[in-house]
C-alpha cells in the first residue's frame, strides 16, 4: 500500500472531524446561521424516528433544540470513515428534565458532501433505556 495515500486519507478524515467539531461548537453557542450553513441545501436530518428535509426544516429543528435548551454535556468521541463522521456524545435538556432524565447518551452520524453535511442522523444510544431515571 502506498503510504502517501494513507496519509492523505488520514488528513481528509482529520479535516472532516474538525469540521464536525466546529459544527458542534456552533450548536453549543446556539449560533443558528452557522449551524444551518453547515448543511447542503438538500440535506436531510433524521432525529430519532423523524425526518427533516431541506434547510428550512433543518433550521426549524435547530430552533426547537435551542428552545428546549439542549446542551451538549460532553463529546466522547469523533471518528470518521470515508465520507461519514460518527460522534458519540451526552446531552441534557429542559425537555429531558421534564421526563426526569438527567442526561442521555446519543450518537450522531453525519455524511458529508465536500465541506457540508448532506445527511445527519441523531439518535439516543440506549444501552440502558432507563438509565438516569
Amino acid at each position, binding site marked *: 500500500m502506498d503510504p502517501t495515500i494513507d496519509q492523505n486519507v488520514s488528513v481528509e478524515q482529520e479535516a472532516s472531524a474538525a469540521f464536525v467539531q466546529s459544527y458542534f461548537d456552533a450548536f453549543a453557542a446556539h449560533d443558528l446561521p452557522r449551524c444551518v450553513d453547515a448543511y447542503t441545501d438538500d440535506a436531510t436530518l433524521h432525529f430519532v424516528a423523524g425526518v427533516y428535509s431541506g434547510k428550512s426544516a433543518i433550521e426549524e429543528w435547530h430552533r426547537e433544540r435551542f428552545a428546549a435548551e439542549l446542551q451538549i454535556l460532553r463529546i466522547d468521541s469523533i471518528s470518521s470513515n470515508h465520507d461519514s463522521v460518527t460522534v458519540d456524545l451526552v446531552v441534557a435538556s429542559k425537555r429531558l428534565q*421534564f421526563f426526569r432524565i438527567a442526561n442521555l447518551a446519543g450518537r450522531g452520524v453525519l455524511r458529508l458532501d465536500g465541506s457540508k453535511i448532506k445527511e445527519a442522523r441523531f439518535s439516543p444510544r440506549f444501552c440502558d433505556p432507563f438509565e438516569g431515571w
Partner: protein
Amino acid sequence: MKDSPNILVIAIDSLRADHLGCYGYQRPTSPAMDGLARQGARAQQFVCAGLPTHPSFTTLYTGQHPITHGIVAHGPRNVLGRDAPSLPQILMDEGYTTCALDNLATGRIWFRRGFEFYIDPSMRHTVYIDVACEELNARAIPWLKSHGDERFFMMVHYWDPHWPFKPPERYQHLFYDGNPTDPDNHSLDAWWKHPLGAVARDTWMRTRDGLITDAAYISALYDREIRHVDDGVGELLAALDDCGLAENTLVLLFGDHGESLVEHGIFFDHHGLYETTLRVPFMARWPNRIPAGSTLSPMMQHHDVAPTLLEAVGALVPPEMDGRSVLPLLTGQARDGGRKQAISCECTWQAKWSLRTDEHKLILARAPDLYGNPERELYDLKADPDEHRNLVTEAGGLAAELEAALEGWIAERLAAQGRADDPLRAHGTSLNLA
C-alpha cells in the same frame, strides 16, 4: 410432568383488543390472530393490571398484582425483590428449556430471571423499541427447530404496535387514502400542547413531506402495525406447525396493555385507565384440551397467566402469587370463575387506580393529571362503553361504594405486606412537574 405441554407465550406490546377482527373490528388487521382465536379460546374481558410495559410484564412473570411486587412505573426507583416468584424460573426448575425473545432485561435485570436463553436482536438498534417482528422471528424459528425435541417455554415480545408507528413499506396501501400532512387539518393540535405530544411532534411525526397533521393517519399507522405483527404471529405459528410442535404446545397470546389513539384526549400512548388501554386481547390454543372457538366472558388479568400455565404443566402455584388459574375456564371444565372486580393502576405519566366490575369502572387519581380530568370518574360500561359520561355526581352512592371497595382492597393488601404507603403516592409519576 412427562406429558406436559410446550408453552409459547406471545406478548404484543400496546395491542388493544378492539382493533382485532375477532373482537369486532371492521378493518382486516388480524387474520392470523383471528385464526388463533378460532382454534382456541378468547377472553372478552382481559384487563391489564398495571400500565405500562414494566409493571405489566412484572405482573405476568410474578403472578402478582403491582401492589404486591411494587413495580408500578418505569424507572429504577423500585426494584423487584429477589423473593418474588418467577414463572420462567419455576418452569426451568420443572425441567423446561426457557427462552425469551425480548429486550426488557436490558433495562431491568429481573426480566431475565429464569431464562436460559435470552435473545435480544434489539441490540442492533439505537432505539430498542425499533426491533421488528421479522427480526424476532428470524431468531425464534431457528431456536424452535433446534430445541423442539425439548420441553420448552418460549416467550416472544413483539413491539411493532408500540409508537413510533413505522410499518414497512409493504403495508403503506392499507387503511388510509388522505393527505397525512394537510396543513388545514388540525386534529393533532391539542396533542402538541402535551409533553408527550411535543416529543412526538419533534421526532416521529416528522416526515419527508412535513409534519403529520391528520390523527386518522396515525390511527391507520397503528392498524398497519397490527397487521404487520399479525403477519409475524402467522409466520411463527406456521413454523410451530412445520416443526410438528403445534399439537403439544399451549399457545397464549395477549397484549401487555392497550393504546389510546385519540380517545379522551390521550393521543397515541398507553396511559389513562380507560378501556382503550386496559382491555387487551387474550387467546389460548391447546389442541384437544381447549375447545376451539370458545369465548369467555369472566374478567381475567395478567397475574392470572402464571398460575394458569403452572396448572397446565402440573406444577404447584406458589402461595405468593396473587393470580388464580383460569385453566378450568379455558378448558371448559368450569363456566363460572374469573374476577368479580379487576383492579388496575398506572404511575408513569399519571398516578391512578381503577376498579372495574362487569358493569362499571371507577377511576381514582392520586395526583392531578395533565388533562385536567377530575379526581374521580365513574363510567357505566354497558350503557357507555366508550366512557364519555362521568357519573360520579349523579351516581354518587355507587361511586362511594366502589371507592370504599377500592380503598379497602388497597389498605388490606398493604397491611398484608406490612406497608402503609400507597405505592403510587410513594413512587410519584415519572414526570417532573416542578
